[in-house]
Every structure is written in C-alpha cells, then in structure tokens.
C-alpha cells in the first residue's frame, strides 16, 4: 500500500494486519519489525560460540575450545580435578535446592518455585553461561555502537526531529509508568484508526506533560497498530531547555494549524489539547472542569484536511501532581513559562516533580466526522465554532459520565 510512492513496512503486526509504518530509507521493515542485526549499524556481526570438538588425541572428551567475542577460550572439563570439583558443585547445588524450603519457610509457593528454578541444573551447564555471555556481550556492543554512532552523526531523524533510538531508550520507562505505576486502562481504542490521519482532542489534566506521555504510551502498548502519536505542544514550551529537545526527538511538533494540517496530510496521528495553557495551569480545585477551548486551530485543522476528530478524556491525572502555586522565579530564570508544581515551600518543593500513583483511565470516544461540514467551513468562523463546540460537548459528556461512575456507553 504505497500511496505517495513510499512503500510501507512489509511485516504484520501482532493483530494480524499489515504494518502501516514507514521503514527507514533502504529498508523493507519499519523500526519495530526490523530484525535485530539487519542494518542496525553494528559494525561487526555478533559471533556465536561454536566448536565443541571432541579431542582425538586420547585425552578426555570434555575438551572445549571455542571463540567468543573474538577471544579464544579453552577448557578441559575432562581433567580429573575439574571433574571432582564439578561433582562437588553438583552435589552442593542439589542440597541447596532441596533445602530451600527450609531456608525460606515464609515465602509464598510461587516465589519458592521461582527460587528453585534459579538454582537448577542449568547453572552447571556450559551452554547456559555461553548463552548469557553472548547476550551480555551483544547488549554491551549494541549500546556502545549506538553511542559511537551518536558521536559520528550516523543516525536518522525525520523532518519533525523524531529519533527512534531516543524513543526506544525512554519507552521502557514510560511503559513501566503506564503499566506499573499509574496502572492505566485505555478503553475505546477501536475508535482510533489503524492508518491515516486522525486528530485526537484531549483534555489536559496534569502538569509536566504526563498526560500526553501516557496517552502516547497507551497507544503504543494497547493499540494493535502501535502508532506513534504526534502531540502538538504549545510553542512556548519550546523555550525551556531540554524539554524542547526531548519533545522534538520524541517526534512531537509545536502547535499551529500549519503543523497539524501537514502532519494530518502525511497520515500521522495528531494529538491536540484544545484547552491550551489554561488546561495546564489549572489549580487543583479546577481539575476535570474543561477550560474554555482557547483557539480555533482544532476545527481548522480538521476541516482543512477532512480528518476525523476523536475525543479523548484522561481521568485521574490531576491527583498525581497537585499544583498549588506557580513559581515565578523559575520562570524568570529560564526565560520560560512557569510550570513548577509545588506542594510545599522550601525543601518540599522538589517533591512536586514526583507524580503520585493514582490510577488512570483513558477513554477514546467515537470519531466526530469533520467532512459532514461544507468544504469551505475552514474559513467560516461560525462553522469552526460549531465544530469546536460539538467536540467540547462530547468531551464534557464523557467526563461527566466518568465522574458519575457510569461506564462509557458503547459506540452507536
């Protein structure tokens, strides 16, 4: 399925559908499906240890002679001393295993079984250690190679600054935050299309972009097509050091009708927070009340490109960082808007950076069709206001339903 001449990834996602991502230049597979070692830039292929030759000169058959990571290792397990020690080791291991229950009587049975599995016969098998060494060696060399490539510029970024290696590095942490810390649940994911441009309108409920990050992670983990979400962040956030860097390398784009429309035309999933800054700076008592939608860019982006608008509500994000006051000093120092959530003064202030582990719910509503509006509605302020209002009403309904405790109605 190559629309603009570029071929898509040739793999199949775990949902059984063809993968819609674009592979890097010259590859057949996107970076998710790229087989390890296939064009990833390793300068030497990993060597797999082989050659366990039986000795033919009358000595013991347990002579090992192999290469591992360019080094030669020779072991003669047939040596009577080594055999003796080996036998002792085996016995000790056996003893340990059978007495584990007595050593740790209070452990629950599943943990005991795991522990027993740890001290199994495999520990004495050379193949286990060879395999472990191979894995460690490969990982170390892969990381070293990646660092080396950073210093020589041998990596790729797309025109929005997306750097997949950066995303790979930070994604495991965000995956943990999603699953382990926030225990987030995403419902209505079937409303997000597998391919093509779609605009997600999200309510803002946290500071420091946790809601955006969790939304991105949710789509990566729970949605079968594993699409990367491109959030539109306020351009003013680009004035903060490091934040702008991370946002850009994560593939996010500064807000603006032109940027959003361009991304939608390229077939990307675009996320937008229509409340804007007012959503971010909400003090704690105001959470879950939708601030007035600040600008009309949401409607214009959708009407110009004809993309569907999918309302998304994120709940329980506000309790995680209670914004009680804003810090002007930090704002002045960094020449950037104030974003310092501070639960207290003085020594307690940095605690504001830590989110509390509240449970999250991310709900995707049914898409709102922007093609139902006449084609020149993008220039008509009345029509754009109507569309914006429609989106706002749907999001309010979703929030109210959640607060009332009722589950979301199934899509009609």
């Amino acid at each position: 399925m190559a629309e603009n001449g570029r071929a898509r990834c040739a793999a199949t996602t775990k949902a059984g559908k063809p993968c819609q991502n674009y592979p890097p230049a010259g590859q057949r597979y996107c970076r998710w499906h790229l087989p390890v070692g296939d064009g990833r830039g390793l300068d030497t292929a990993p060597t797999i240890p082989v050659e366990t030759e039986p000795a033919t000169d009358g000595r013991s058959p347990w002579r090992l002679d192999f290469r591992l990571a360019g080094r030669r290792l020779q072991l003669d397990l047939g040596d009577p001393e080594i055999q003796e020690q080996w036998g002792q080791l085996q016995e000790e291991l056996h003893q340990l295993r059978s007495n584990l229950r007595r050593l740790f009587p209070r452990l629950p049975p599943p943990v005991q079984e795991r522990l027993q599995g740890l001290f199994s016969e495999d520990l004495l098998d050379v193949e286990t250690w060879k395999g472990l060494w191979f894995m460690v060696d490969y990982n170390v060399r892969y990381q070293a190679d990646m660092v080396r490539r950073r210093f020589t510029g041998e990596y790729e970024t797309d025109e929005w600054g997306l750097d997949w290696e950066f995303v790979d590095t930070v994604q495991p942490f965000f995956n943990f935050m999603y699953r382990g810390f926030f225990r987030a649940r995403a419902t209505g994911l079937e409303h997000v299309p597998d391919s093509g441009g779609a605009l997600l309108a999200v309510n803002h409920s946290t500071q420091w972009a946790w809601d955006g990050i969790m939304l991105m992670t949710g789509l990566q983990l729970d949605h079968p097509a594993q699409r990367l979400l491109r959030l539109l962040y306020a351009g003013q956030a680009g004035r903060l050091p490091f934040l702008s860097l991370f946002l850009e390398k994560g593939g996010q784009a500064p807000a603006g009708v032109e940027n959003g429309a361009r991304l939608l035309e390229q077939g990307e999933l675009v996320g937008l927070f229509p409340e804007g800054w007012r959503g971010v700076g909400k003090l704690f008592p105001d959470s879950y009340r939708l601030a007035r939608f600040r600008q009309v860019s949401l409607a214009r982006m959708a009407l110009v490109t004809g993309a569907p608008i999918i309302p998304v509500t994120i709940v329980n994000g506000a309790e995680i960082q209670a914004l009680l006051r804003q810090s002007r000093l930090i704002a002045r120092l960094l020449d950037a808007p104030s974003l310092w959530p501070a639960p207290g003064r003085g020594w307690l202030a940095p605690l504001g950076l830590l989110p509390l582990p509240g449970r999250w719910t991310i709900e995707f509503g049914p898409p709102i069709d922007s093609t139902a509006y006449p084609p020149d509605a993008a220039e008509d302020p009345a029509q754009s206001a109507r569309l914006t209002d429609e989106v706002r009403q749907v999001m309010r309904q979703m929030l109210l339903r959640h607060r009332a405790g009722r589950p979301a109605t199934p899509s009609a």
Partner: protein
Amino acid sequence: MPARQRILVTGVAGAWGSRVAARLLQDVDRHVLGLDRRPPQRRLDGLDFIQADLRDPLLAALLRDEQIAAVCHLPAVDEPGLDGANGDTLVTGTIDLLAACAAAEIRQIVVMSSSLVYGARPTNPAFMAEDQPLYGAEAPSVRRLTDIEAAVAGSSRRPASTRLAVLRFAHILGPTAPSPLNRLLRLPLSPVLLGFDPLLQVIHEDDVEAALLYALEHGADGPFNIAAEGLLPLSRLLALGRKPALPLFHPLAYAGARWLGGTRLATYLPLDPDYLRYRCVADLTRLHEVLGFEPERTAEAVARAARRERPDPAGEPDPAAGEAALGPILARRRLARVGRERQGQGRPATEEATHG
C-alpha cells in the same frame, strides 16, 4: 551574430559577487558587468568592472545605456569587513538599485537573501512558506537582510514585465562561504546552547551558485526558499562534521551576545543565539513546483563534506591583472561618457574602469 546577453552583477567585490561573476564569465554568450564601490580581489578575466555606488543617480542611465538584460544583486551582508558602518548603505543602495531598475525597465532581477529573515521563534510554523511574515533577528546581518527584503517587497512600482526573484538560501556551508553558520563551524569550539537542538536546513555553496544561475536563466519571479533536501539537528550536523561543541547556558549566551557586539560578536558568536535555540526551517514546495531547481547535494552530504574541507582563501588578489584589456574598455567608456555629456547631463561620469 546574436547579441550577447548583458548581465549586471552588483556586490562584485564580495565573495558571492566575485564567485557568480566568475561563473557567468565562463559562458561566452554573456557579457558580464560588475558594479561595486571597491574592486574585486579575485582576478576575473573578461569582467567589465564599474566602480560606482549603487546610490548614484546615474545608475538608471547606466542600465539603459549598457542595455542590461538582467541584474543580479548580491548584497555582502555576511562578510565582516564589509559590514558595520557600510551596512546601512546596503539597504539604501538596494532601494536605489530597484528604483533604477524600474526606471530602466530591466527584465529580470535576482536578489540573494537568506532564510534567516523568517526569524527563529518558538511560535513559528515548523515549515515556513514564502508568504510568512519576516521577523528577522537582532543580529545586524539578519536585520539588514530583513530591511533589504522589506525594500524589495515595497518596490511595487516596477513594470509588470519585470521579474524579481528573491532567493532565500538556508545556511550556506562549504569551503569558502562566509555565512554565519560556516563561521561558527570553523571556530575551534562551536558554541551551542545547552538543552537545545534545533533542526537546521543547509545548502552547499556550489548549489547556491547553481541556483543563482538557474534563476537568471529561467526567469524566476517571486520569493523562493532554497535549501538541500533533509533536515539535520544541530548536534548531528556537528557530529557529521566532527566539530567539537561548547554548550552554553542560554541566558549566558544571550547576555554574551549583547555584551560582545560589533565585530567581536561576528568572531565569537557569528550566529544569533535564537537560531541555535529554535528552528527556522523553510518549506521547499514552491522551489520544487514553481522554480524546478533541485540542489545536487542532500543536507547529510553537505555536512559530511564539511568534515573533509579545509577553508580556502577565496583566490589570491592579482595586482597585475588585465592591463592589456583595459584599452578597449577605456575607449568605450570614454565614448559613453562623451555621449552622455553631449546629451546635456553636465556631470562627469562616475564610473571608471580600473580592473580588467
């Protein structure tokens, strides 16, 4: 025998002027005239040099008399020696040049500008089209260019048959280009801002030359953003070019820029810190669809080439150049001058040929 096309190149003493003039001179079908207040330092055989000021009121007469078909205006905003007090004369000179071209009904004008005039601001669109308002920057060179662009935009009194092309080039890299980013890369430690890594567009100086010629030959009209394909983060550009970077805390960089000022600024922080902080990327759709010019090298190739290149002096000055060719040129000038005086202008002509 068909008449040779006559092209006037202004700013011929600067790096770009002499380069474009040299390239144009390679074509025998063209007669190249060069105009500047100082003689070019390079040896340019066959160049018809006129030492004059752009603000001279006789410029329109010169253009008409010499039957200039196209004017290529290459203001030397980036060169440290030529700006400063003379910088503002570039702007007034451009205004006067455009007025003279309108009076002489020149068919084609090509002006060289830079995409830095869009300004690097956090709220700019990610890809700026040609109709984007120009915000420019505090740096003097960019400010002058912005003023020149404003002058070009304001010169709407020209006849409808005139084609005025403004070529906004991205950061120009190469062995000899005097652009701010090039000077930054040539410093022993390139200053960057800590915590910022904007995406940059670049173009190789050979492609710039090719683009200027292409615009002259193909009758380009209107503003065009010109850059190589592909975007590079600043860190990647430095890594590919194997240039060491010096991260600066950004308030210090801005304070330092304010404190340095003048030529010291051009030496130590040639590029305005805003361009090291926010992206200033131009949209190339109009270049591909309307002008049809494709730069030869991609951005990555340009960055890699920067690794291997050593800075070249732009050609040795040749004091003994062209004396033999002076005779016929002097004679012609004399004739022209006499002709003008007879027509009653009553002033000695200000142009004199000193270089062949």
